């Protein structure tokens, strides 16, 4: 029930998304702490901010906060995470673009082979049936498997290193906080 409520409400919100911001009588914009259309300026950030999924790579970008008294370890961690984010973004947006391009090519060639229009009589798109599409999925997966394995190896290394560095940073923060208390 909550789901359908959210669904319906967001359907309306999405439909009305691009209206000019007209303030109706007696209605103010709701301000929710911790959620915004854009992250605040660096000086006002108290935590990292995570954004919506990028349409091409499906990954969520994180805006890292640069604290004033940043130690060398913290800076290294932040730069590693930033770098990993960019690298992931580049890989997946390129990969998804390749996928869409190859899929479009495959569908086009199938349509040419079948010699039909791309649009059916009732206006919907004509697409190959599942068995033919599975042919495409198989070839795509096998073609790109090598690059995926390389990516996976690199991702595991980076992720493990990020976790290790985060652990060290966390420990050093706890220690320094303990020292400060004393």
């Amino acid at each position, binding site marked *: 029930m909550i*789901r*359908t409520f*959210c*669904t319906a*409400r*967001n*359907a*309306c*919100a*999405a*439909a*009305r*998304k*691009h*209206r000019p911001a007209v303030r*109706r009588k007696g*209605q103010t*914009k*709701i301000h*929710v702490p911790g*959620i915004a*259309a854009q*992250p605040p300026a660096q000086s006002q950030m*108290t*935590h*990292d*901010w*995570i954004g*919506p*999924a990028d*349409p*091409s790579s*499906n990954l*969520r970008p*994180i805006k890292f906060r640069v604290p004033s008294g940043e130690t060398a370890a913290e800076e290294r961690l932040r730069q590693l995470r930033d770098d990993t984010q960019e690298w992931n973004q580049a890989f997946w947006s390129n*990969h*998804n*673009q390749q996928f*869409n391009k190859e*899929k*479009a090519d495959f569908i086009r060639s199938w349509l040419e082979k079948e010699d039909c229009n791309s649009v059916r009589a009732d*206006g919907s*798109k004509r*697409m190959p*049936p*599942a068995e033919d*599409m*599975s042919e*495409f*999925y*198989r070839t*795509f*997966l*096998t073609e790109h498997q090598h690059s995926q394995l390389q990516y*996976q190896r690199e*991702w*595991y290394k980076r*992720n493990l290193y990020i*976790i290790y560095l*985060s652990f060290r940073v966390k420990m050093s923060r706890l220690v320094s906080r303990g020292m400060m208390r004393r």
Partner: protein
Amino acid sequence: MRPAVYVFQQRAGAAVRTVVLQKGGRSACTPVRQTCDVPARCLHTWDTPWDKRWYSSKAPSSITPQHTYRAVSRENVENDYRRILPTSASVPASSTEPLQGDSRQETGHNKPTTIAEDGVPATGVDDVDADPEVLPPNQLWREQRLDLGKLPGYYMKLSKIRLTGLVVISAMGGYYMAPGSHDISTFVLAMTGTGLTSCAANTINQVFEVPFDSQMDRTRNRVLVRGLLSPLHAVGFATVAGSTGTLLLYNWINPLTAALGVGNLALYTLLYTPMKRMSIANTWVGSVVGAIPPLMGWAACTGGLEAGAWVLAGILYSWQFPHFNALSWRLRPDYSRAGYCMMSVTNPDLCRRVALRHCLLITTVCSLAPLTNLTTWAFAFNSLPLNLYFTYLGWKFYEDANNQSARRLFMASLWHLPTLLLCMFICKKSLHDKDKKDNVKAFTDFVVGFHPFPVLPFHRL
């Protein structure tokens, strides 16, 4: 007036979104025609009209969105909105052809396109209070501040609590079927240990699969993908849960169960997770992972692994194949794009063959289970109709693999296993031994002492 649900597709831009609108019974509204691009109006939403919504203004007349909509399909539905609108958010990758990356579009050509809706927080966990007038919650930036109140919910999602529950149930089955003495405290400790180990395994899996999970619709709203917890936090949770579970098993149960638990954890995180992208053999490894919990339950009871334990493990091993192959059949586009090596993508014939083969194996093993003194011969006969129906669905999947037969097989596998286990529990050998009274007393003591269900007259069977 019967409401009509129109599924619209926004004109392709940088990102393609879909909105489901409904034409209500207002005579003042412009009807939306199907074939041409018309400005659409959001007239009425499901059951509550515009002016009743708590956040909306009174007058719907200023609605004219700046984007035009093209109707893709039209359907008259009564109340079946859930069918039209799956609950997970889906923003397909941008492309020249809209909705290309969406696996749901492949489902059928006769049905209206079931297109997921943008901006839905599928789990409803947070972002619900975001300002709806500006952007849907999934379009907003969120501060990564840990909300302690929501932490138990996050932990449950990280540990895939439903899957863990099923794992614990299969371990319970193993414990119950074992011919040793049953003790309530041992039982509770064994199940807790198994559950904690399973939580740890699932969490570690999620930590390493973040970029892959964000590519697939099914897993797009996981905790780590949405950044609700940091990877370090998740790893910390996994470490605590895993070590607690293992120590519990080692200290209070026996080393064999602890070893099986650790082995299962290692197999799942170190072998199965990376192998998912390397070769299709990952399905076999995953099936072994699924078969170990009943062994753990059995070892917790008797301290060893007799023939009956292997029969139970074998049944669970074989069950994984029709279950998973049927599930993966519908996810082929997503698996292909995210780079997972699954049988359904690389070798569909093998996929169907293996599913059928293991359906037949389950039938054979269940029919021969009484030979190991696990159950009475009644089990062989009682389970036969169940297994034959399951095999029939497997045969249908083998013969003509499409989304419908895959879905039927998958749904059947969900009730087939619990029913089979129940049948097995009723036909447990030691219940029906010559010295009937003692066993029945032991059983009723166990049941009355622990079971939340009312005690059934098993001695009358």
